[in-house]
């Protein structure tokens, strides 16, 4: 394998867009790197191919990168995340029956109002001995943590009041159709497909739970990142160029057509286009609703790997795996995210480079200018639905005040 090639593993999802576009549209070639894409339908296999050298990098759910570095479920392997492939872009889809039981109308729900309605339904189902079941794409996924954050925040105890199970994104609509689950929290286009098939309705976008939630990342084995710094720099510049292109309104149709191809998402162009253009069809046949921050691939330095994002994910891992907070593990988790590599790769480009490597998460009510060493950086509203903020320097304190 030549030094300039990166084999990149991915799961067929809209947010695998950046490596796919970088490969297909020549952004990688322009930087002197070659990308080979390796498609798999489970995160376990994307991870295994990365760890055992079938791939050099991977499109990965962010918490799985941290779980792998911490040695959850298997011996620890040091991973490096130099680039975030996107924020949010997921949704919670209810079965038609659950949507009706919760009184959902023709629009997205309100997290608090819907939460109260869901709490009643969950209690009834629990009392009837048939607790509600939700499917998420992986135990270590932002989907799992977003869903749990919301449920716990509205007084529904995950694992006690409702069951949470795992379902592969490509099969999530099937699980909903078969009645195996009452709701799913997955990435696009799989919510759109569930709606278009008439088996569910979108209840919430995960951006309504956390307005700027970290989603997929580009992960490499740390030894690969250390051995190939120049090639990695070229790859990051290519991904950045792809991101800039991807968010241009005039490119959406072409990007959707590309991502829809059988070797990528193998899904209808229209469903993908809706996700890219931040439009959500909530119920079958209805007109899509515009939700401006549905998926976030470029603006506000969205690709910058904030160490505070890794810290938040670690906090959720402690919370839901029943771990004891460990300062050493928190440091390991945060060290997976490498803002230094991002800055080094994009120095001299047009990308705004934040001064800080960590920030208070969920503290902004309105857009604010932030310190940058290069370019002008504006950070937007990034609230959690319950108004709580996360201070990465006080994870233990944060955990203590969570429900």
């Amino acid at each position: 394998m030549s030094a300039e090639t990166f084999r990149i593993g991915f799961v067929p999802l809209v947010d695998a867009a950046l490596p796919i576009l970088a490969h297909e549209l020549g952004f990688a070639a322009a930087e002197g790197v070659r990308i080979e894409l390796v498609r798999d339908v489970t995160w376990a296999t994307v991870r295994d191919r990365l760890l055992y050298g079938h791939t050099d990098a991977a499109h990965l759910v962010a918490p799985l990168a941290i779980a792998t570095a911490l040695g959850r479920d298997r011996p620890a392997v040091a991973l490096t995340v130099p680039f975030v492939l996107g924020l949010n872009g997921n949704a919670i889809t209810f079965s038609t029956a659950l949507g009706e039981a919760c009184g959902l109308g023709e629009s997205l729900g309100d997290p608090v109002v819907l939460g109260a309605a869901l709490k009643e339904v969950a209690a009834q189902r629990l009392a009837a001995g048939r607790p509600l079941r939700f499917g998420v794409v992986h135990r270590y996924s932002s989907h799992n943590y977003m869903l749990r954050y919301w449920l716990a925040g509205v007084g529904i105890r995950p694992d006690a009041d409702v069951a949470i199970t795992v379902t592969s994104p490509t099969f999530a609509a099937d699980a909903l159709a078969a009645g195996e689950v009452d709701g799913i929290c997955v990435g696009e286009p799989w919510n759109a497909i569930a709606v278009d098939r008439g088996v569910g309705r979108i209840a919430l976008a995960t951006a309504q739970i956390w307005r700027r939630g970290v989603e997929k990342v580009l992960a490499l084995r740390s030894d690969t990142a250390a051995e190939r710094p120049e090639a990695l720099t070229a790859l990051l510049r290519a991904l950045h160029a792809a991101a800039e292109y991807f968010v241009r309104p005039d490119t959406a149709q072409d990007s959707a057509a590309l991502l829809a191809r059988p070797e990528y998402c193998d899904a209808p162009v229209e469903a993908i286009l809706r996700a890219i253009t931040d439009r959500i069809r909530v119920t079958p046949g209805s007109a899509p609703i515009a939700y401006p921050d549905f998926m976030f691939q470029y603006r506000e330095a969205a690709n910058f790997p904030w160490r505070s994002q890794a810290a938040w994910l670690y906090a959720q891992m402690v919370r839901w795996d029943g771990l004891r907070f460990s300062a050493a593990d928190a440091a390991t988790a945060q060290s997976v995210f490498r803002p230094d590599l991002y800055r080094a790769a994009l120095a001299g480009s047009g990308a705004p480079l934040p001064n800080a490597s960590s920030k208070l998460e969920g503290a902004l009510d309105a857009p604010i200018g932030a310190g940058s060493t290069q370019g002008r950086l504006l950070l937007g509203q990034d609230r959690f639905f319950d108004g709580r903020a996360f201070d990465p320097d006080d994870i233990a304190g944060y955990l203590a005040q969570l429900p």
Partner: protein
Amino acid sequence: MRIAIIDTSTTRAAIISEGLRDAGLVDLVVIDPAGPLVAQVEASAPEVVLINLENPSRDLLEDFFAMSRALARPIAMFVDQSDAQTTMAAVDAGVSAYVVDGLAKQRIKPVLDLAIRRFQAFSRLQTELAEAKSALADRQTIDRAKAILMKRRGLDEPAAYALLRGHAMKSNRRIAEVAEAIVTSEALMGDLP
């Protein structure tokens, strides 16, 4: 030692079972890919689980194993750190193994080695089968092209074949490709004078 086999290919599952049985490992459970996965695995209480790498249920299975941490004998992915080659060979062959806590490594290694060999043998068989199928298809196309040439140009069979072969050599293509082109054009334009 009870071994559960989870495979999207029932043929490969049978090939692996046979191999394990021949090696004296007879306590086998082949999980029905159409049935509920977790319930079947839970009911069979295996000590070793073999699953194909491309199985769409791997994330679900790992979630189930992660929850087994609370049990007396949790199940985890088998990663032999003293012999990374074995784990890597398994991934290369397309199989992944999970074992209960406390199972001695020397008991797992032969199972995994056997599974790796059987997975490799299955891939070889598939490749050979695909090649045989494509050779047969080529043969049929060439026969049809020859028949077209014989009819259209009034040639005998050796002459028709020589014409095909000569054209393939000149145009640096496979005989089957030239034959394919003739069959296609006959299908589209054969009725024209």
